[in-house]
Structures are given as structure tokens and as C-alpha cells.
């Protein structure tokens, strides 16, 4: 593994918020400049670019990278719904590990419209029948979990209590306000058992990540964060089964654990896809932190708090930091990098050495392990 690792050299974020007066290109450029400054390199050192975005993506990557400079590098748009920029980072890591490039940059951007995500332009059958309801998919997984394991609606709501508490400690979070369990449970019901405050908001924002080879890192940083293993996938067909997951997270986590020599017990903090609160309850099981069915009590008992056994979404997660779809994966990498460098301030997980990332988008899933 040594000398074959990929290094996170720089990370940057534009605070997740609302930017009616800024274009997607503005947001992407600002995040990229922050990452370049963090890495201590020039844009002309970047050899390939990946651009994660979900909506209005045509030509957008080339435009955004073109704002930073034009030295002819290949730029590729990557669209894996809500897992776009982490997939961009995976592709960059593949190329760096393969020896094709020393330095790659990922920019993730989204400017989202307010309100519930719709089914797209043409009204399809699912949309007309009221079934294009994204929280509904998570709600059905939650209901099945409640039926099988006796999980309670308070368990799911507690995810959001914790995420909002963490968001208060994160200057880049969209929402920096604590919410009580009662406020979350009593907010408007969207899709039973998911209430409004258990849904991620719509957000504008951008993230950028610079990955490099271990060889390059030795000359450019004294505080490398290593990306040691990664795996990506899409759903695996099982006859007659209504899955309790958005994609093959467990399979990918096992691959990453095997490739890195790590086990769930070695993970110090987790960035996990909590677009809706059941995401964390299901995710801690699939990533191996507790047994199937125990995710509810695991969260309820405080294990995923910053000072808990397995801190999850220390930056507020999708629920509180916000979820500008194309930017989310890069924001997850940013938080893990800052934690592993010991730069996370009031939300620092003490002595964090291993971080695990899980990012999912309409069945496409990425799992990545980071180490110092």
C-alpha cells in the first residue's frame, strides 16, 4: 500500500447557504481558490479536473475550470446525483493511483431551487401518481425497519437533533441553530415518519478537493491526509426484496475495509449520507458499527455524537450543513480532512486518525477511507 496511496492535498468550501447574486461558476471558482490556497499550489499545477453537479450540467465543468485558467487540462463532468463530487474524487484517485497524473482537482457545485425536488420537466407516471416523493423512499425504508426491529420515530428524529447541534459548531453550515426533539417531531409531517426537520434543506454551495500522488505530496505538504481505499457501486439485484438501503453500501464498505486493512472498530469519525434522518440509522448498520436492527438505539444512546463512540456528521451533515447536491461529496471530504488534520475547532474529534465517507445518490454509492 505504501507509496501507492493518494493524498488529499487541499480542501475548500463556500459556506452552504443561499446565493441569489452569485452564479454557479462564481461559487465553483471561490471553492477552488480556497482549495488551491489550502494546498499551497497554483492552478497550473493541476493536471486534470472533475466537476460534480446534478442540474444544468452541460458545459458547466469546462466553464468553471476555465475561469481558473486555461492550460489545456482535461475536464470531465461527473453526475451521480447526490454522490457526484465524491465520485469525481474517486475517479481522480483511480487515475493518480494508476500513475497517470500527480495532481487532480474536483469542484462540486449546486444552486438549488426552493421546495421539494420535483420529478423533472415531463410529468411521468410516477410523478402524476404522487410517488415521486424523495423523503417517501426513506420513509418506506424507515417503516420497514420499524416493523422488523421495533425502531421508534424518536430514534430517527434524534439524528436530526444531533446534526443540528453539530451544525452550530460549523461556520460553513447552512443552519446553525439547535432544534429540540419535540421541535423536530412536531414539525410538519412530510412522509410518515419523516417530518420536515428530518429532511435536508435545499441549498447553494460549492466544494473543492485537490488530490495528489504520495510522491508529489512529499514535496508539497508536511501534513498529508491519505485516501487509502475507496469503492463505488450501484444497486445489486436481489429477487423479491425491497431493499433497506439506497444502493450497495454494505458491499462497498466491506471492500474498503478489506482493501485498507481497517475494520469498523478502527473508524474514528464518519461522514454519512443523511439526506433524510433514517439515512443515519440505516447507514451505521451497513457500515458495520452496530448489528442490523440496532441502528435506532445506537443513535438514540448517543454513539454518533461528536464525543460518542462513532461520531457521525460532525459538521452537521446534509440535514444541517445543507445538501447542494453536486457539492456534498466534496464537503464530506473537506470535513474528514479537517478532522484528521486536527483543524476542526470546537467540533474536533479528539485523536481522530481514521475517517470513513459514505455518499449516495439514487442508488449510486461511494465509500472512501481516509487516514493519517
Amino acid at each position, binding site marked *: 500500500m505504501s507509496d501507492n496511496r493518494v493524498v488529499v492535498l487541499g480542501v475548500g468550501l463556500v459556506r452552504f447557504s443561499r446565493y441569489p447574486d452569485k452564479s454557479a461558476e462564481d461559487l465553483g471558482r471561490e471553492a477552488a481558490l480556497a482549495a488551491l490556497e489550502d494546498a499551497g499550489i497554483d492552478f497550473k499545477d493541476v493536471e486534470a479536473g472533475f466537476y460534480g453537479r446534478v442540474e444544468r450540467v452541460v458545459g458547466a465543468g469546462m466553464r468553471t475550470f476555465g475561469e481558473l485558467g486555461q492550460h489545456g487540462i482535461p475536464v470531465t463532468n461527473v453526475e451521480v446525483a447526490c454522490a457526484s463530487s465524491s465520485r469525481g474524487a474517486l475517479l481522480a484517485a483511480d487515475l493518480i493511483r494508476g500513475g497517470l497524473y500527480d495532481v487532480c482537482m474536483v469542484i462540486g457545485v449546486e444552486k438549488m431551487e426552493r*421546495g*421539494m425536488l*420535483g*420529478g423533472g420537466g415531463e*410529468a411521468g*407516471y*410516477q*410523478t*402524476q*401518481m*404522487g*410517488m*415521486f*416523493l424523495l423523503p*417517501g423512499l426513506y*420513509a*418506506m*425504508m*424507515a*417503516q*420497514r425497519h420499524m*416493523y422488523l426491529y421495533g425502531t421508534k420515530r424518536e430514534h430517527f428524529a434524534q439524528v436530526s437533533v444531533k446534526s443540528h447541534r453539530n451544525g452550530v459548531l460549523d461556520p460553513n453550515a447552512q443552519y446553525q441553530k439547535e432544534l429540540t426533539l419535540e421541535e423536530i417531531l412536531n414539525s*410538519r*409531517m*412530510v*412522509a*410518515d415518519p*419523516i417530518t420536515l426537520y428530518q429532511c435536508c434543506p435545499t441549498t447553494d454551495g460549492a466544494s473543492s478537493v485537490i488530490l495528489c500522488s504520495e510522491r508529489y505530496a512529499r514535496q508539497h505538504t508536511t501534513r498529508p491526509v491519505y485516501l487509502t481505499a475507496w469503492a463505488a457501486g450501484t444497486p445489486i*439485484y436481489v*429477487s*423479491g*426484496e*425491497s431493499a433497506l438501503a439506497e444502493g450497495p453500501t454494505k458491499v462497498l464498505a466491506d471492500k474498503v475495509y478489506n482493501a485498507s486493512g481497517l475494520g469498523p472498530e478502527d473508524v474514528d469519525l464518519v461522514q454519512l449520507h443523511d439526506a433524510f434522518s433514517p439515512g443515519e440509522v440505516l447507514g451505521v448498520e451497513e457500515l458495520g458499527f452496530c448489528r442490523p436492527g440496532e441502528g435506532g438505539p445506537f443513535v438514540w444512546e448517543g454513539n454518533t455524537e461528536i464525543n460518542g463512540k462513532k461520531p457521525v456528521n460532525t459538521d452537521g451533515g446534509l440535514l444541517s450543513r445543507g445538501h447542494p447536491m453536486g457539492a456534498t461529496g466534496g464537503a464530506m471530504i473537506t470535513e474528514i480532512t479537517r478532522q484528521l488534520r486536527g483543524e476542526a475547532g470546537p467540533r474536533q474529534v479528539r485523536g481522530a486518525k481514521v475517517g470513513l465517507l459514505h455518499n449516495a445518490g439514487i442508488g449510486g454509492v461511494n465509500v472512501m477511507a481516509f487516514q493519517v
Partner: protein
Amino acid sequence: MTATQADEKPKRVVPLREGLFRIPTSPGEKPALIASRCPRCGEHFFPKRAICLGCGQVGLEEAYLTGPGKISTFTIARMTPPGSLIEAPYVIALVELPERVIVASVLSGCDVDSVRVDMPVELVLEKVKEDQEGNDVVAFKFRLT
């Protein structure tokens, strides 16, 4: 064609989308979902698809699924999503059919708070709107039995 002739056209029952379900044409015939069956491994799929997810067989047979089913999981939609013809509150369920097919569907009018996992359901067709010619546009739903 004159307006008079158009007015005299009999009202028909038309599907919200072609190719998803079969509308009964004779009394006693049950509505059916139009599915695919793999001639090699016997796996069923709804909606129809070209290639078997079980064994990779290209070219599947048409099959008709009439139920009954049971609720594998569900949620109560309390907000009407954009573009929906169905008004909240309503239940969205994953229904398991005897052919080991999971179908996502709205449940036909019921007390939304009474729905539970494992409840038996039957396939029904229901009017969801009228088209410009005054025809009844129908969609499939499942109904608690």
C-alpha cells in the same frame, strides 16, 4: 370532422400510461399489471423490461399479474409533491406479489392511519382525471381487502 360528431363519440376508459396495466374488456375479467417473465429462469418483473436481472436472458415474455398482494412497507404522504394528481394525505406502499415482484403503488382510498405492514391488498383501477375528450383516465392502485 364536425364538432357535432366529436360530441357524439362515446366516453372511453383510457390508461394514464400505455403498457403498464390491462383494462378489463369483459365482465368478470380482473385488471392486471403488464409484466415480463423470463422464459429461462422464470423471474418476473414489473414494469416490463427487456433483459432479465436474474440470469441476463435477452428477450422476455409478457406476463399478467393480478395479485393479490401484501404490503411490504409504506408511508403516508402528508404533502402533495409537485405534478401529482393525487392529493395528500395518501398512502404509498411497496406491495409484494405472489410472483416475488415488488410494486410501488398508491393505496386506494382508506383510513391512512390504519395501514400496517403485511396487510393484504388487491389490484384495482381508478379514475384519476378526465382527458380533453371527456374520457376517464385510469391508473392502477392497490386496495386493502
